[in-house]
Every structure is written in C-alpha cells, then in structure tokens.
C-alpha cells in the first residue's frame, strides 16, 4: 500500500479522524447504537417504512404474529413476535446510525451558518469611484444573486460568490477543517469565496452567486444529513431484484399452506405441533419462514450502506452533489489528471549540474549556488538544495558574504546572480534562462562555446528546462560555466498508483500544457497510459467527448473557469474548492482539500460502495440455505418423520429451531452494521480477483456462518422454559 498522498490531513471538526486505511470509514461506537434508538423506533411508522418493501413485509408479519400471540399466548409465539419486532428495529437502527453520523457534521456546519448582516453596495461597478455607489446593511439571508457586498477584515462572508475587487486572506476552516488561511483575490482562478467563511485581513468586494437558501453550506448540510437522499441507479436496480426475490418467497410460503393441509390430512394420525395443525402451518411459523427467507439482511442495511458511502466521502473532505456521481466514480474507465500538482510537484527542480569542458563540477555548483541565493523562486531554491545535497555546499546567507551585491530574479531579466567585490576585483555570476544568460555573456565580451548550445538542446530535448550559469571576472571576457538541468519531479508513489489503476481497468491520461516531447518524457516517467500535450480547454472537452463516444466514463478534476465545460461534460467532475464558482457549479463533486489526487480515492470509495451492496446481497441469499435446513424439518418432520434427516444441525426441537433461525436472522443485521457503515475491504485489483475473493468470503461465508450461528443460538434457546 502506498502512503496517503493528500497533504491536508486535518479532519473536519466533529468527524472521527482519518484512519490509515485508504478506503476505510469511521468505527462504530456502541454508544451510537443507543443514541440512535429513538430514531429507530420512530422509523417503525409504516409511512416511513414503505420505502423499504422488504422491511415493511417484516413489520406486517410482526403485527400479524402480535395479534396471534395476544389471541393465543405461548412462550414460542411471544418470543417469535418479539424477535420479529427486533428485526425491524435493528434494520431501522442501521439507517439511524448512518444518518446520525451525518447529523453531527451538519450541526458543526450549522454553527458556521450564523446569520450575519451584510454590507450591500448599491450601484457598484468595477472601478467606480467611492461616491458612485452607496452601501446599506442587509440581513445575509435576504441577499439575492448578483448583489455586491463589501466584506472587511474580521467579518463573515455573507454568501457564496466571486471576489470582484481586492485581495484578502480568508479562514475557511469552517468548511474545510484546514486552519491555515487561504488567499482569495479578484480575477483568476482563486476568486471564489464561500458563505460562512471569515475574512482575516484586507477588504474584498464580493458578487453573490448563490440563490437565497441554496448556499454551499446549505447543500453540504442537506448532503451529510441525507435529507432528500435520492436512490442511486444501482440501488434502484438492486431494490427491484430484492423485491422480486421477496415476491418469490412470499409465493413459496403462501402456496405452501394448501399443500401442508393436504399433507396433514394424509397423515391425520400425526399429532398437532406448534408448527402444523389440521388447519395447516400455524401463522406464527409461516411468518417466521417468510421473514427468514426474504432478503432481510441486505434489505435492512441497503440504505445505511448508501448513507455511509456518502459519509466516507465527506470524511475525506469531498462533497458529492449526488449519490449518482459517487456510483459513477466506481464505473470510471478513464481518469484525466492535470500534470502540475497532481502527477508532478508544482514546480520544476534542479536535477543535475552539467559543466562545460574545462570547468569542474564543483566550480559550477558553487557558482550556481551563489547566483541562486537571491532567487526566491522554487526553481532557484531547488538549485541551492541540489548544490548542498550533491556537493556538500552549505547554504550561505546572503548577508554573510562580504562585499556582495545580489541581483534578485525578475521575470523581465529572467536571471539572477551576485556581484562579488573582492577589493576592486569584481566577479559577477549569473544564472538564468539560456537565451538571457547567453546574451549577457556576449554583452560582456565573451563567446559562449558551442558546447553550451548542445547541452541546452539536449536538456530541452528530454523535456527539461536548461538554466545557464556564467561568470564575468573584471578584465576578462565573460564565460559560460555550464548548465543546470531543471526538470519536473514526479510525486513519490505515483507510478504505483497508476499501476493499481491499470489493474482496476482504469486508463490514466495526463493533461498538460507542455509540448508533446516534454509531456511524453513525464508521462513515461510517471507511468500514465496516455497524455494530452499542449492541451487547451477545448482539447480537454473534445477528449472527454471522444472517450464517452466509445462508451467510457470519464473522471477529471479542475479548478478554473475554463475547466467548467469539461467538468460539466465529464461523468465525474471534481472541482477544487480553491477554484472558481463556475467550476464548482459545473462539477458534481467538490474537494475541500483541493487535492487533485483525491480523484483516485473517490474512485475507490465508489467501487467500495457497490462491492458492499453486492457482497451483502450474496451473503443474504446464501443465508437462506441454512435457514431451510432449520425450518423445513421443524415444520414437517411431525407428519413425515423422514424429513428429520434434513435437520443436519441436529437442532433440539421444532420450536427452538424456528426461533433460532429468526433470532439469527435478526442478530446478523446488528452484527453487520459496522461492515455496512465501514464498507467491505477494498484493495485495487482486477475484477476477477475481486470476484473470487468476495465470492469466497461472502458467498461461502454466507452459506457456512448461519449453520454455525443457528446451531449456537439453538444450544441456548432450547433451555428457555416453554420452548420445545
């Protein structure tokens, strides 16, 4: 397993901390079960329960046995009735616990959503003179789309919008959990601000983009609470299958009655039992059989699995605007990843020093370091680091070198350097873009050798950036000392990640503005499957369309306004929270950490969600086999003694056998709640491997576990007085 890649590691306040598992979830606290009990009881209302037909049937069955138990009380009837009610309650509990975890997060978010008073600027236009508009105080909830407000240091931003004037540092910890402030400024891709966050310094003018009551925080609250949760396509399909199975078992149980009456009539001499009388199988037993057969396990846990899946995303600071998007993430065939920041570190770094003939490497390193001391760009700092690491040159503080005049890096001069005045003997060292430094050498009477040109071309050829280092000692012609090779550094662990992706059947495509040659070099190094070089937003959109034409699902991340069309077109579009409002609107997920590698985790969570459903469905159906072996001999061995051969578990008596099956059926729901909430373990692997593993675990396990479970329960239940 590779190390987690995300850098921002702070959990959302109020959520359990992240675990090491890549796709794990929060642990289940027993206290949560207790706390959710009132909610679980409230959910017994049939008007709530009708959305879950499997459990509704259990409830109707429980009502029926309650009537029977009241009319004709016996220990057996009462025990079955109690456990049938518990079955429904346990199912509700699973859902309530899953929802409860979201509620805690929602409360934290609500605190951020305090109602503030905003300063609305009326008549404001960009660049308007101060007297061209007036301001007025308006309660934040009354702000409309298009209103312009002024927010000053210490104030809470009253709604979602874009900064149209000014720059400020903003504390967004209320939604991201990240305590370090972020910069928000007008124009560009960092203009979006979120209502409920606080301006720490300066003042900004914000144009509100949200409709009243539909702010980002409002949507977040609705999402984590699971309010108006829509069933996802796979969930709907699974529900249909479960409904069909329920109908089959309903038929099997109902049609059994005339056959049972016929059989009992044939063996009229057989005495009545708790299970079967002359009027057929007793109601309590018939309901028990039905409840044991219909897929209650998956029926009980299905909605909890869905809620918990969304919750796992929220714990990773990803907000999915719909469950459909989470499911689509599991189906993704093609992953578009921006090169910079996702595959490579944000900036190029010095990788080696290439001296020209006649200059030794240490001299070049020394000159490179000297000339970079005043270069505060990441590239410049990386030169200093390389000199230290490779040649043991300690970093010299600019102030510690006597008689030195530093020339800082500027974008215009495209070079930096230092002038050393050793008693009138001035030595000038420069480092910078090849063209700029070569010109400087010429201007100072030198002639760059052809070798410099060759080195520069060689580096450019491999996709790197060459920086030329030169010196000029007074009285001599200037000369080039050598070349620094700057290159993109692929983040650690990316190749392994992409290998995993490939095993999962996902193709990775790197998107970059670099030329094809550079792009290819990095693509090869990172191990992505393909790349799109010199990519414009239109190219991205075209690529997504082309992939989708071929039936593939595409996921991508983006932050800029020009990413918006592609984000909207992609099946899974993850917008960075630092990005523009347009990007956030267009995508169907927002990553609050603004970590582009998060996409990989989102895919895994999507898959895990589906696997959990499939695994528990298999488990649920496989369970029925053992239940038959418990219930059928219990029902009919009284009339056909040979059927006792089916009692392979050697359960004590018919009543204890049936009760044990019902108890097992209920307990297994509670036992699986943690699994439903956490999701089954997922490791990236091919479909065949996953199927084999899950089939053994949940298919074979589903057959074996109930045999053991029912037997164990029977060992206890048979001692209950009044149970035969």
């Amino acid at each position, binding site marked *: 397993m590779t190390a987690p890649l995300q850098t921002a590691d702070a959990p959302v306040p109020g959520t359990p901390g992240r675990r090491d598992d890549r796709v794990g979830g929060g642990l289940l606290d027993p206290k949560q079960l207790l706390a959710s009990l009132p909610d679980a009881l409230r959910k017994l209302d049939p008007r709530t329960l009708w959305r879950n037909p499997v459990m509704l049937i259990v409830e109707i069955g429980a009502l029926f046995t309650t009537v029977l138990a009241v009319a004709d009380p016996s220990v057996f009837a009462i025990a079955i009735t109690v456990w049938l009610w518990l079955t429904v309650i346990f199912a509700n509990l699973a859902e309530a616990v899953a929802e409860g975890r979201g509620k805690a997060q929602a409360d934290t978010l609500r605190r951020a959503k305090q109602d503030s008073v905003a300063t609305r600027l009326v008549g404001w236009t960009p660049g308007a003179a101060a007297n061209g508009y007036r301001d007025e105080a308006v309660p934040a909830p009354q702000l409309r789309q298009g209103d312009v407000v002024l927010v000053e240091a210490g104030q809470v931003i009253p709604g979602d919008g874009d900064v149209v004037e000014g720059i400020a540092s903003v504390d967004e910890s209320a939604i991201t959990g990240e305590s370090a402030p972020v910069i928000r400024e007008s124009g560009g891709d960092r203009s979006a601000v979120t209502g409920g966050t606080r301006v720490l310094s300066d003042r900004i003018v914000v144009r509100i983009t949200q409709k009243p009551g539909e702010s980002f925080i409002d949507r977040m609250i609705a999402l984590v609470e699971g309010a108006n949760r829509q069933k996802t*396509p*796979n969930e*709907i*399909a699974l529900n*249909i*299958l479960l409904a*069909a199975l329920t109908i*089959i*078992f309903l*038929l*099997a149980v109902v*049609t*059994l*009655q*005339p*056959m049972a*009456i*016929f*059989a009992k009539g*044939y063996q009229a001499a057989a005495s009545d039992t708790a299970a079967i009388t002359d009027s057929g199988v007793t109601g309590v037993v018939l309901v028990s059989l039905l409840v044991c*057969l219909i897929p209650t396990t998956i029926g009980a846990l299905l909605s909890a699995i869905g809620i918990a899946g969304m919750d796992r995303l929220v714990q990773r600071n990803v907000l999915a605007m719909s469950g459909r998007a989470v499911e689509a993430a*599991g*189906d993704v*065939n093609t992953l578009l990843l921006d090169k910079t920041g996702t595959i490579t570190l944000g900036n190029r770094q010095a990788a080696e020093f290439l001296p020209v003939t006649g200059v030794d490497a240490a001299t070049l390193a020394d000159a490179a370091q000297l000339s970079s001391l005043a270069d505060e760009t990441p590239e410049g700092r990386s030169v200093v680091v390389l000199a230290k690491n490779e040649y043991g040159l300690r970093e010299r503080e600019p102030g510690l070198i006597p008689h030195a005049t530093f020339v800082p890096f500027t974008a215009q001069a495209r070079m930096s350097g230092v002038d050393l005045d050793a008693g009138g003997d001035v030595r000038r060292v420069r480092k910078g873009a090849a063209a700029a430094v070569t010109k400087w050498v010429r201007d100072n009477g030198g002639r760059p050798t052809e070798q410099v040109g060759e080195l520069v071309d060689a580096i450019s050829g491999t996709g790197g950036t060459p920086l030329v280092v030169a010196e000029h000692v007074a009285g001599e012609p200037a000369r080039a000392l050598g070349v620094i090779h700057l290159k993109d550094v692929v983040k650690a662990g990316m190749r392994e990640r992409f290998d995993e992706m490939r095993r*999962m*059947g*996902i*193709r990775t495509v790197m998107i970059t503005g670099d030329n094809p040659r550079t792009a290819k070099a990095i693509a090869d190094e990172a191990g992505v499957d393909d790349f799109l070089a010199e990519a414009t937003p239109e190219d991205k959109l075209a690529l997504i369309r082309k992939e989708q034409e*071929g*039936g*593939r*699902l595409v996921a991508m991340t983006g932050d800029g306004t020009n990413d918006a069309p592609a984000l909207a077109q992609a099946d899974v579009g993850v917008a960075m929270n630092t990005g523009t409002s347009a990007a956030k609107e267009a995508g169907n997920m927002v990553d609050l950490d603004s970590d582009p590698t998060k996409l990989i985790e989102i895919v895994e969570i999507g*898959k895990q969600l589906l*696997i959990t*459903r*499939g*695994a528990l*469905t*298999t488990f649920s*159906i*496989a369970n*029925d*086999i053992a239940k*038959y072996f418990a219930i059928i001999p219990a029902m*009919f061995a009284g*009339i*056909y003694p*040979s*059927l006792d051969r*089916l009692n392979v578990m050697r359960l004590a008596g018919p009543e204890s056998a049936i009760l044990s099956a019902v108890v097992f059926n209920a307990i297994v729901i509670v036992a699986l709640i943690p699994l439903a909430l956490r999701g089954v373990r*997922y490791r990236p692997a*091919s*479909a*065949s491997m*996953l*199927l*084999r593993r*899950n*089939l053994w675990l949940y*298919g074979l396990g589903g057959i074996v576990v109930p045999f053991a479970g029912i037997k164990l329960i029977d060992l206890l239940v048979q001692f209950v007085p009044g149970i035969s």
Partner: protein
Amino acid sequence: MSMTTAGVLFVLSLVAALVAVHRPFGDHMYRVVAGTRSSRVERGIYRLVGVDPAAEQTWGVYARSVLAFSAVSLLFLYAFQRLQNHLWLSLGFDPVVPHGAWNTAVSFVTNTNWQWYSGESTMGHLVQMAGLAVQNFVSAAVGIAVAVALVRGFARSRTGELGNFWVDLTRVTLRILLPIAVLGALALMLGGVVQNLSGGTDVTTLTGGAQTVTGGPVASQEVIKELGTNGGGFYNANSAHPFENPTAWTNWLEIFLILVIPFSLPRVFGRMVGQKRQGYAIVAVMAILALAGIALTNVFELTGDGTVPQAVGAALEGKEVRFDVSNSATFAAATTLTSTGAVNSFHDSYTALGGMMTLGNMMLGEVAPGGVGAGLYGLLILAVITVFVAGLMVGRTPEYLGKKIGSREIKLASMYFLVTPALVLTGTAAAFATGNASTALNAGPHGLSEVLYAFTSASNNNGSAFAGLTVNTPWWNTALGLCMLLGRFLPVIFVLALAGSLARQQPTPASEGTLPTHRPLFVGMVVGVTVVLVALTFLPALALGPLAEGL
C-alpha cells in the same frame, strides 16, 4: 457389461457426438440467422404474406408479430380439432371437446405438447400432420427466433432494431428444422419407426384376440417432436411405443435430436456477439447442469430404494426392458432438461428421488440446455441476474457483454424469472385448495408430486406427464392451458423488451475492471445462482412431495 458401464458409455457417446456436432451445426445456424440472402422459396413466402424481408423490427413490433402469429396458430388449431369430423383422414373421430381442444391448441403453439388425450384414439391423421406437426416446426422456430432477437440485443448497439420475425421464422423452419427433420425421419424409418397413412390394421393376437394396430405418419412427426423439443407423441405411450422408438439406437438418436439444437445455440450466441468464448461459457453452464441432472437421475434409478428395485438391482417399474434403466433414465433427464416432454418410460414409476430429479430438471427453468431457443434466452436471463450480483461485487455497475444491467434490465429479468415459479406454485396450491388435486391417483407425498409435476411441466412448457393424474376435466385443461400460455408468452415479451433495451445501449469497452463472463469462476457462479434460486423457491413444496417420500 454391467448396467452402470452401459449407462456411462451411453451418456459418453452422446456427449462425444454433441461435442463434435455443436460447432459446425452452430456455425450453420449462425449463417442462417445472420445471413442476408433469401432463397427463391423464401422470397415467394415473403411475397405471399406481404413481408419486406429487409425491413427490421423494433422489439415491440417483433413481440407483436410473435403474438399475432401464435394467436392465429392457436385459433387455427382449435378450429381444426373442433371441425375434424368434417375433414379428410379423420379416421371417424368426433370433434375434440372444447376444453380439450383449447388445451391442445395452446399446448402445441407454446411448444409444450402437453397431451391430455391419447393421440391414436382422438386425432385424425390430418390434424396430426397439418395441425400438430406444423406447430411442432413453427413453435420451435418461434423459440429460436426470440432467442436470436435477444442475442441481437446484446450484439447490436444504438439501434432499436432486432431483426425481422417473419424472416427469422421462415429461415429457421426451412433451413434448419426441415432439412434435419427429413434426414432424421429417414434414419428413424431405417430404425423401424412406421410412416404411412393407414387407418389401422386389424390383427389377430397370439391368444386369438382381435386388435387394431394404428399406423400413421409417425416417423415424420417423431423426428420434429424431438428436434424441436416438442414432445407430443403420435401415440399415447409416446417414445415408449415401439412404433415411435423401436430400438436402443433409435433411442440414442432421439436423445441426440432432443439435445442437438439447444446445445448448439450457444455457439450461435458466441458468433453473433463476436466472442466465441462467451458462447462456450454458456454451453458450459448448460453442460454442467445437464450432466449433473443426468448423472443424478441415473444414480437414483440404479440404486433405487424399495423392495422390488433392490430385488432386481434397479428400479425397472414403468421402464421398457428394451431400453433398460440407464437408457430410460438418461432419456427422462434429457426430456425434462430440455422442454421436450417426450417420454420413453413413466416418470411416475421412478424412485421418489429419481422422480424429483425429473421435476427439478424442469424447475431449473428449462435452461440446461432447455427448449430450442427458450433454453438459450432463459439461461441468458439467469446470466444477467448473476452478472448483476457479481458485477456489484467487483465494484462497477454490472455489465454483460458491455451492456449495462440497470434498473430496466433487472426489472425485465426479474419479471421473467418470476413467471414460472408463480404459475407452478399458485397452480399447485389452487389445485389443492379447490379439491381438483383429488384426481391424482395417489394420496400423500406421491399424489402431491403428481400435481406439482403437472403444473411444473405445463408452466415450463415441457409437456411431459408424471402420469397418475387424470387431467381431462374442464378445470385441469383450462388451468394447465393458462399455465402453458402465460408460461410461454409472458417470458417472451420480457425477453424481447430486454433485447430492445440492450440494443439501444452503447457498449462499454471491456477492461481489467470488467467482470469477465467467460471464465470458470463465472460459469460456476451462474450454475450456483440457478441451482440456489430453484432450490430456495421450490424446496418447501419438494419437501412435502418427493423428499418426504424418498428420504
């Protein structure tokens, strides 16, 4: 040679023959259904019925064509029986009673061939030849056509069109069924099966009694009875009758004819979807289930419990001695594993568990290998359900051959799957609840098996009878007729609707993340899903019938 060795060799020789034939024959069928050229005869037929062979049909039109054709066939067959006394070659028989005519009309149109009557004493030659035998051809062709339409749904993308029912029907009849039927009939005649238009020969028996021996166009009907997995015998005794099935090798040939089309259709499937290995996977599922069914039926019969079977070494009651136990048990398994329903021995007389196997073979939903066409589409439905559960377990929206199995697909597959269990169980329960089950010969578990068998056979369009149940009452004829009708056409509608929704989809290209549906793991899973679903559905009923009797 011991009885067991003989039985094993018999089965192995069948397996070898099917392995050898299914590829070339499947390829031939593929060319028939995928081709575009029409022969002169076919063009004549299209002109006659006013069909443009180049026009494709959407699923709705295809389904309406199937239903319209079947409805016309049904009415025609009903009228034929009711009016037979006015027609030639009626042999002087009266018109068939209304409820019986309805039952038989439905029975032959649905490829079930459930027979409440004795053919030789109820139907004239013309009804048998021009009515029943014709339906033996076209009802089989309808099954193949529907299966082909479903496969087109998988093979095609972004289209609403599934082919042309009339073209499929014509081609399958003329180019697949008819040529083999002619050859097969000749082979059977060589083996001693009768073929004439005699009204019966009066003979004096050894003991001096007078007997009329009915002849008729038997071989021609016999061959399509097996080839089209129909099963309706010319004689009441069906393939146990020496004029239908005289020797051990005609017995072998008849079993081969029963199995050859159902086992070759997966090849057509593989060819049409462009991945032969997908066809091999389907045929593997069929073969595993079929071999298990045949083996278990044989085991239960050869090691039969009970005083008499143990005395003679096997359960011989109800079996022809010229076939012996194993060849009878293998025939019984083959006829119930396919929706044929022809019999060469009496399933009612089988051991309790052997009888349960014939029941269980049908309860699988006639998919191993099932009826012509119906077996393939039934198994593909089960594969879709398996893909759905397995697909979720690999973390993707389930897809089969690149087609996503979403809520519409799973809804149609579920409804398909619901039909037969619903008919079998409600029918059986209704028979007991209304007291109509009392026509069963036996009481107790065996009586329950007899009733359960009748509804299982009718609803799965098998048509074999357990015997021991009197069904020529208005209630039984009506109820079983309804089961046959709904058991055939509701699934057909769901299958075609599924085909329509699959054909519209753009397939997702396969990747490492796609569930492979051609590997042993998946094959095993389909087998498991089929068996478990059947077991879970029918175990309570079986417990009160054959299990109570046999354990």
